[in-house]
Every structure is written in structure tokens, then in C-alpha cells.
């Protein structure tokens, strides 16, 4: 820089052209080394060692605001730890412990003030009580607070956040540097809105010179992500419960589930129609006789070389505290292996303790599948008895109807159950997780 040719003057002082340096200053109270990692942005320094509150004076020296003797408390991350989040480097320059009290229970959390000289500040939150993590970024604007179906909501950037809770947050412990005045005991009313894994925090502060509202966009972070970002060794603390912002894993991919459900239902209708249309349930035998008389007949189960499902419908009457049974034997004409199935009917009634009762059924159907088609000799051998006897009641008759190529409703119902119940089950799991989440909100069902 050359001075003017007419006037000789000193070279200008332009301190901000020089690189800003990280200073280490001894705490005027305890002498501990305080690293000024946040350069000049700082309004308040709390000595990590003794807790004394310091303020940088205009000359750069630290003015002692409040002398304290307290132990440094261990936080989930140490002061001056550096990590990579949102694709940028951040340094923990301040640590605040805060808590809220609800229904006599205290919920503490730790806030790590992250600093990058070119990007400003972020807030990393560790919820001590359930060990979840979240990151807060200053919101780029003001959300619109309103009602949605009688629920208080905040709308911003096309997203709707539901009001979760409003609480009075207290500062209980401070260490490090802050760009605003902060001290233990500070209180702020915080309104939390959630749309997991995102949230909105609205904090209102009043002081003698004015008032402001700070809007912060929150996002759930997994402990593993924090550990990786800050290159911590070991494993992060295991989280418990749902937390206000943790994504509901049962709600993830719900769209895929329901679209799949719709497509599978279409497929199910098509296949069901195809199946029922191909079955004509032809009656191949119909006979009636006294219970003492066997029946026999040649029957045809369709062209040989296939298999089919055959139903045997059996009824006996009049049955009164009696049973009837038929041994149905199919003897093939072209093979050795015969097929047999038993079918029974019964009827029991009585009076027990003044209550009359009946049970049993005088009409039953048994279905057998995998029956080879072809010609058979059918033989039906009936039995019956009254009570426990094997003597058939007088006048009892029985009837048998045999059909081939029958429609089996169970094969139609089974896929329908799978297709509908699985999404309903996933949906109800999601509801249970949400119920657990909202149990800790201002909207918990009153206990």
C-alpha cells in the first residue's frame, strides 16, 4: 500500500485482513487454559474447569462476570471436538445442559453448540433420558402456526408439523463459548412441533431491550451417525423408546405396501375368477337309503390322467341323541390303490342346570383332494347308534351326494387374508409406535 504523494501517513490498520487466530487465555479465576475456538463471535465464556462466567472486553481480555467453583461435568461429547455434519466441519464450542419437568419427572438433555466461521451455528442435541440425538439448524424463515383438524400445527416449506409439547426449558449447566449471554437458570418457553424425522422448535426470549423468536429446524440423528461424524471410539449409548423425532420404521415404505396390496388384490380377483369358472362341481352320485343298507354304484370322476377335488356330503335323519357314520370307499377300475374317507353326523341334546342344549350336526361335508380322475366303484357302508350303543335307531335314513371338480373356498380366502392382513398388521404396528411416541407429549391420553 503506497501513501499519498502529498501526505505522509501511517499504514492503515486493517485487522480483519489478517487471519483470525485461536487464542488460549488463562481463566482469570482458576487459571485453567481456555481455548477461544469461536474467535470473536463470543459474548459469553464459561470456564470449563471452574464454571466462572467471563465476557470478552473490547480490549480482548476476559472480564470476570461471576466467579464460580464447580466441577466440570462430563458430557456426551467434549468441548472442541470437531466433526463432519451436513458436509461441513463443525467444532463444539459450547455445551449447555437443559431440562424440562413434566408430571414431577425431569427430562434432561445436552446441547452442543457447533460452530463453523463461514456457516454459523448448529445445535446438536443429546436427550439424556432416552439417549436419542437430533441436530438443529436455524430455520430459513418463519413457519405458519395454525390449526389442522383441531390440532395445533406449524407449516413450513410445504411440510406440516404437529404440535408435540410446550415446555419451560431451564439451563442447568454451561461450559464453553456462546455468541449470546447465557447462564445457568435461564428459562425459555419452547414449543416443539414434529413430523418425524423432522421437527420445528420455536423458542421465545424476552429481555429488557426487546424480544425475539428463534425458529430451529430439527432432524433426528442416529447415535451411530454422531459417533461416525465426530470419529468417536466405541459405540454410542443405546437409545430407548421412540422419542419425538425418531422415524417410525413401520411407517417407512407404507406407500409401497399399500400399492402392493392394491395390485395383489387385482391379481387375486383375476385368479379367483379363473379358478371358479373352471370348476363345475358336477354331481357324480346322489343316493338315499335306510341306515342299515350299504350303497354301491359305478361313478365317473372325469377323463383319466388328472387329479381333482371331490366332496362327500352326508346327512342322516331323524337323529336324536344318536350318531351315524358312513365309510365311503372309492375303488378305481384302472389302479390298485383305493381311496377311503369317513363322514359322520350326530345330534345330541339335553337339559343341564335348567338350560337346554343341543350340539352336533346332522349334515356334514368332507372334501378330499388329489383324487385321480377316472372310473371308480363307489361303496358306502353306513353305521349308526343311539347314545353309546352301536344299534341303529329304527327308521333312520341317510343320504350321500358326491361331487367332483368342486370349488374350494379356503384356497380363495387364504390369499385374501395374506394380502389384507399383512398391511393391516404393519399399519397397526405403526399406530402402536405413534401411540408410544405421543404418550410423552402434551396430548397423552389422561392417565
Amino acid at each position, binding site marked *: 500500500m503506497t501513501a499519498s504523494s502529498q501526505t505522509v501517513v501511517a499504514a492503515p490498520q486493517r485487522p480483519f485482513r489478517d487471519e483470525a487466530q485461536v487464542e488460549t487465555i488463562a481463566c482469570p479465576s482458576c487459571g485453567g487454559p481456555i481455548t477461544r475456538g469461536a474467535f470473536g463471535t463470543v459474548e459469553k465464556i464459561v470456564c470449563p474447569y471452574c464454571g466462572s462466567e467471563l465476557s470478552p472486553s473490547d480490549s480482548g481480555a476476559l472480564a470476570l462476570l461471576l466467579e464460580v467453583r464447580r466441577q466440570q461435568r462430563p458430557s456426551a461429547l467434549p468441548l472442541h471436538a470437531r466433526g463432519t455434519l451436513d458436509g461441513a466441519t463443525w467444532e463444539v464450542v459450547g455445551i449447555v445442559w437443559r431440562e424440562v419437568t413434566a408430571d414431577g419427572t425431569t427430562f434432561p438433555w445436552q446441547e452442543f453448540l457447533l460452530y463453523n466461521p463461514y456457516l454459523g451455528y448448529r445445535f446438536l442435541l443429546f436427550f439424556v433420558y432416552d439417549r436419542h440425538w437430533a441436530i438443529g439448524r436455524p430455520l430459513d424463515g418463519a413457519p405458519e402456526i395454525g390449526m389442522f383438524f383441531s390440532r395445533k400445527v406449524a407449516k413450513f416449506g410445504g411440510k406440516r408439523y404437529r404440535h408435540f409439547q410446550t415446555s419451560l426449558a431451564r439451563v442447568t449447566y454451561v461450559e464453553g463459548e456462546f455468541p449470546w449471554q447465557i447462564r445457568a437458570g435461564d428459562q425459555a418457553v419452547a414449543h416443539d412441533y414434529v413430523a418425524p424425522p423432522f421437527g420445528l422448535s420455536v423458542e421465545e426470549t424476552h429481555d429488557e431491550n426487546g424480544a425475539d423468536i428463534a425458529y430451529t429446524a430439527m432432524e433426528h440423528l442416529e447415535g451411530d451417525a454422531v459417533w461416525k461424524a465426530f470419529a468417536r471410539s466405541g459405540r454410542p449409548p443405546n437409545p430407548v423408546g421412540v422419542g419425538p423425532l425418531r422415524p417410525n420404521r413401520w411407517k*417407512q*415404505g407404507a406407500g*409401497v*405396501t399399500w400399492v*402392493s396390496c392394491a395390485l*395383489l388384490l387385482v*391379481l*387375486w380377483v383375476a*385368479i*379367483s375368477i*379363473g*379358478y371358479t369358472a*373352471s*370348476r363345475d362341481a358336477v354331481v357324480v352320485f346322489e343316493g338315499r337309503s335306510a341306515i342299515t*343298507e*350299504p*350303497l*354301491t354304484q359305478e361313478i365317473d370322476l372325469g377323463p383319466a390322467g388328472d*387329479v*381333482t*377335488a371331490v366332496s362327500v356330503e352326508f346327512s342322516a335323519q331323524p337323529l336324536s341323541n344318536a350318531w351315524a357314520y358312513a365309510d365311503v*370307499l372309492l*375303488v378305481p377300475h384302472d389302479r*390298485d*390303490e*383305493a*381311496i*377311503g*374317507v369317513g363322514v359322520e353326523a350326530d345330534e345330541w341334546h339335553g337339559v343341564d342346570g335348567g338350560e337346554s342344549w343341543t350340539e352336533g350336526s346332522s349334515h356334514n361335508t*368332507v*372334501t*378330499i*383332494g*388329489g*383324487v385321480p380322475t377316472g372310473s371308480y*366303484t363307489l*361303496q358306502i357302508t353306513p353305521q349308526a347308534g343311539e347314545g353309546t350303543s352301536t344299534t341303529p335307531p329304527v327308521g333312520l335314513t341317510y343320504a350321500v351326494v358326491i361331487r367332483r*371338480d*368342486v370349488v*374350494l373356498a*379356503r*384356497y*380363495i380366502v*387364504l*390369499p385374501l387374508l*395374506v*394380502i389384507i392382513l*399383512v*398391511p393391516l398388521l*404393519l399399519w397397526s404396528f405403526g399406530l402402536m409406535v405413534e401411540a408410544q411416541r405421543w404418550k410423552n407429549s402434551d396430548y397423552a391420553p389422561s392417565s
Partner: protein
Amino acid sequence: MIRVRHVVYWVLSLGSLALLGLEAPNGALLTTTPDRGQVEKGTGTVRGAPIFIWAGGGYHGGK
């Protein structure tokens, strides 16, 4: 996003639909298993037809 639960859902659903489309006409899986075995002609007739009884004594079990 596709998750394991979707794949399980598809496998179960398509499996049960395949059962409906391919196995339901045979009907062997979801029905009563009948007795199967050799029969022989017993003594006597019913209305002129021979009476069959299970071969090898009373048992007529299994597939």
C-alpha cells in the same frame, strides 16, 4: 423404499396366489387326507355288487 417386510409380503401373497391358481384344482393340500391302500373283495354282495374291504386286515391308514 423397499424393505425386507415388502419382500416377505410379496413372497407370502404370491405364494398363496400360486396355491390358488395352480393347486386349488387338485385340492390336495388344504383338504382332508383320505385313507389309501389296497382293497380286496370280501364275501357277499350288495345288490349284486361285490363288497370291498381294506386288504391286510382292518388298518387302512396313511397316504
